């Protein structure tokens, strides 16, 4: 049958084209991962070595000197970036929108904050071994759950284990009953509200509205000392690098593929024999642990943690960092966290009334105009530029999928 033969011929052609496209794509991926590796190391070296060095060198007047304040602020942004990585992992890759990540951040921050509070010792305003707010509230004896936080090791472990524990219970209940999408978002928001309410109470002995503050020392080093802050900054950079590698490993692993599949079609994953609930629970817990780590790094650098930093609005802001940077890309989450917080610290200083407008506008703009975030914009520009330069070089374009019509 001539028709048949013709068909076979065309199939071969299609196969060839597909093969060459695949090879090209693999090449592109390899190149991209090379480029990514290059970026990773460059940024890593700048953050880890160059900035602290510029801060440490004793030329405070010169224009390239990085002030203590600047370095400290950057440390805060990078702590936020760890948190953003966690949110990106669940939202960008697994499609779970959590509006309650402030809670996990807060658990980590409060855990380490409690250690810092206790290590003030008698340097406090009232000269009492009890934290100041307990003296105000007429608490005579340290509550039992504060006791273990005399130990730094316990506090550091608790800062990560508490969010994990909490996320496991909450996630298990939520994913088991297949709460997802907006339902999950709404429930986590209620979680953030509840946590905010509870942390605000005085009788929970967590500092009430004023939170934990006035820290003096960490592990015997004074927090006001630039050297300590520099060390904390470097620790944050290292943690961020570790978190990034962990996330990249998860995303590139087979489980990562399942996560993306869950995002794009949960029912199909379920029908293919996977259990989406377990994968979601896993990634949710990892994300919570990262949030706890971020909180623990945040507290000694910023020097205060209050319920206002863990409530409904902060939790939503965290999501918007990821959206601005570009969700579904790890680098986007980091860039978004740094960029938005930078803008925030500038705007709230000079135009405090305008910040909510800006934030609201950002929500709208990100969702409506550039849903892929900054990384998406960059990609669009670079692919447009690539097409343009290819045209200049008169090289034939890689045929786009679907341009050849198979019968």
């Amino acid at each position, binding site marked *: 049958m001539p028709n048949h033969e013709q068909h076979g011929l065309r199939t071969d052609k299609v196969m060839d084209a597909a093969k060459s496209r695949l090879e090209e794509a693999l090449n592109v991926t390899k190149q991209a991962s090379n480029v990514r590796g290059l970026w990773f190391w460059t940024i890593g070296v700048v953050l880890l070595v160059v900035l602290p060095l510029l801060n440490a060198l004793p030329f405070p007047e010169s224009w390239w000197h990085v002030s203590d304040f600047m370095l400290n602020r950057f440390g805060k942004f990078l702590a936020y970036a760890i948190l953003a990585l966690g949110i990106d992992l669940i939202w960008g890759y697994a499609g779970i929108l959590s509006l309650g990540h402030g809670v996990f951040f807060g658990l980590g921050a409060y855990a380490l904050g409690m250690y810092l509070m206790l290590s003030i010792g008698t340097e406090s305003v009232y000269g009492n071994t009890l934290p100041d707010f307990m003296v105000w509230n007429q608490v005579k004896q340290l509550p039992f759950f504060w006791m273990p936080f005399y130990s730094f090791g316990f506090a550091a472990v608790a800062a990560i284990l508490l969010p994990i524990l909490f996320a496991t219970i909450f996630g298990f209940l939520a994913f088991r009953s297949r709460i997802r999408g907006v339902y999950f978002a709404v429930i986590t928001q209620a979680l953030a509200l509840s946590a905010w309410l*509870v942390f605000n109470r005085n009788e929970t002995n967590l500092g009430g509205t004023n939170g934990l503050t006035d820290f003096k020392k960490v592990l015997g080093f004074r927090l006001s000392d630039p050297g300590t802050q520099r060390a904390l900054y470097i620790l944050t950079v290292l943690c961020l690098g570790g978190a990034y590698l962990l996330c990249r490993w998860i995303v590139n692993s087979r489980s990562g593929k399942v996560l993306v599949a869950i995002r794009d079609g949960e029912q199909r994953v379920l029908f293919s024999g996977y259990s989406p609930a377990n994968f979601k629970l896993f990634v949710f817990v990892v994300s919570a642990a990262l949030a706890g780590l971020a909180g623990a790094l945040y507290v000694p650098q910023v020097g205060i943690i209050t319920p206002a930093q863990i409530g409904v609005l902060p939790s939503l802001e965290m999501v*918007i960092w990821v959206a601005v940077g570009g969700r579904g890309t790890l680098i986007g989450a980091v860039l978004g966290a740094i960029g938005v917080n930078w803008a925030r610290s500038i705007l709230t200083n000079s135009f405090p009334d305008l910040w909510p*407008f800006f934030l609201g506008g950002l929500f709208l703009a990100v969702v409506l105009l550039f849903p892929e975030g900054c990384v998406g914009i960059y990609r669009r520009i670079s692919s447009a530029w690539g097409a343009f330069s290819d045209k200049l070089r008169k090289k034939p374009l890689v045929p786009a999928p679907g341009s050849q019509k198979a019968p």
Partner: protein
Amino acid sequence: MSRMIRLILIAAMSLLPIGQAAGEEQAPATPLSAELQRAVIDLTSDDPSVQEAAVARLVERGDRKLLAQLEELRLTADRNLRLALKTVMDLLRNKLNLENPDPNIRRSAAIDFGPLGKPLAVPWLEAAFARETNRWVRYSLEESINLIKLSNPDPEVRLAAAVRLGDLHSQNALPALKELAQADGDLQVQRVAQAASHASEQIETWATWTGAIDTVFRGLSLSSVLLLMALGLAIIFGLMGVINMAHGELMMLGAYTTFLMQEAFKTYLPVNVFDYYFLLAMPASFVVSGLFGFVLEATVIRFLYGRPLETLLATWGVSLILIQSARVYFGDLTSVAAPTWLSGGVQVMVGVQLPYNRLFIIALATVCVMGIYLLLFRSVMGLKVRAVMQNRDMAGCLGIPTRKVDAYTFAFGSGLAGLAGCALTLIGNVEPGLGQNYIVDSFMVVVTGGVGKLGGSILAALGIGGLNKLLEPSFGAVYGKVLILILVIVFLQWRPSGLFTIKGRHAES
């Protein structure tokens, strides 16, 4: 005449060591009769019996004119006389008010007699009791009579009064009865004490019950506001799969519309029509919020169709902008005066008074639910909405303009939020963050109630609103809210898609 004035002045000056000049300037317009003057002087006498007699005389002879005169006298009197005069005036005013045509005034006068504790008032109260027809005024009169009798020297009278007060469930008598129950003495006194403690127990049991009724009622009115809000939210969610985070701010918009309507009435219209501003504010807030919702749908939500999480974020952005705009424009706190026809309340039993404003909110919610029911289930528009809700593509194929249905439904749901905001001004202040207080609760209602059936939202709103108020006294507002969240999560384990859902054959459901 001038002689009289001089006489008064002399009397007044002899009484008033302070401010002679003031006394001269403020001579009473009409003089007191000589007898009453003497009584006034006697008021400061050291002898209690003379004092009592003076008080009795003054009040017996008194009328409104005397009240005005005493008031004037009081302005210049010294401390002793002021105190004495106050008692006289309170007695006199309340005695006069007992004959007032308004039952509310009669009642508050009757209640006032109790704490004054003057035995000489008992005959007047009894006389008033005999001619009184209003049930609650009669109740208060009897309560006050017995309350006064509680301090009677005769133990038998005290005993009878205590027993009667217990039967009346008089909350006002509770402190006095408790004190009496502590009394120790001979056999008779002990019997009185026993009766008093029994009576106070009776009253306390009653108070527990009335407290429970009160809680239920408050829960019901909170639920009504929640219901108004959640119904709009649930309809929109059921239809479009969209959670509108700005829903609370649409409610705030309604509240501010009410506030502006009130201000407009105050500024441009005569005082006597002011009370009717609320009637106009209700449709106005519905229309304003509805229009805003319409615009929101057309400019933002329309472009995010099928991306519910993105819609959630975008509408949150809108809500941030709205809150900040309200804060910049209106400042932090503004309050709306409830119209006079909604102040006060109706007494249904001893210790239970249902405020009109809360009753009104409940009625409004009921009317709205009925209206929504008719609209959804008994009209062509509702048929289309339900068709789109069940199967959008099929409805579209059958020629239903699904986008138009979306737009109108969204506007309608927003209007309901505006109406909820208008109702909320009756029981709270108007502030930019108003919507935030209710939004999480109403999301909980939507999640628990499920979508597609009115019944689910109604039940969930009643449940969550009721629980909120029920848990508040024992757990405090904060832990109550936390407990509700836990309950909702546990509930979702059992029914993941809420109380009621449209049954279908999707894998999704």
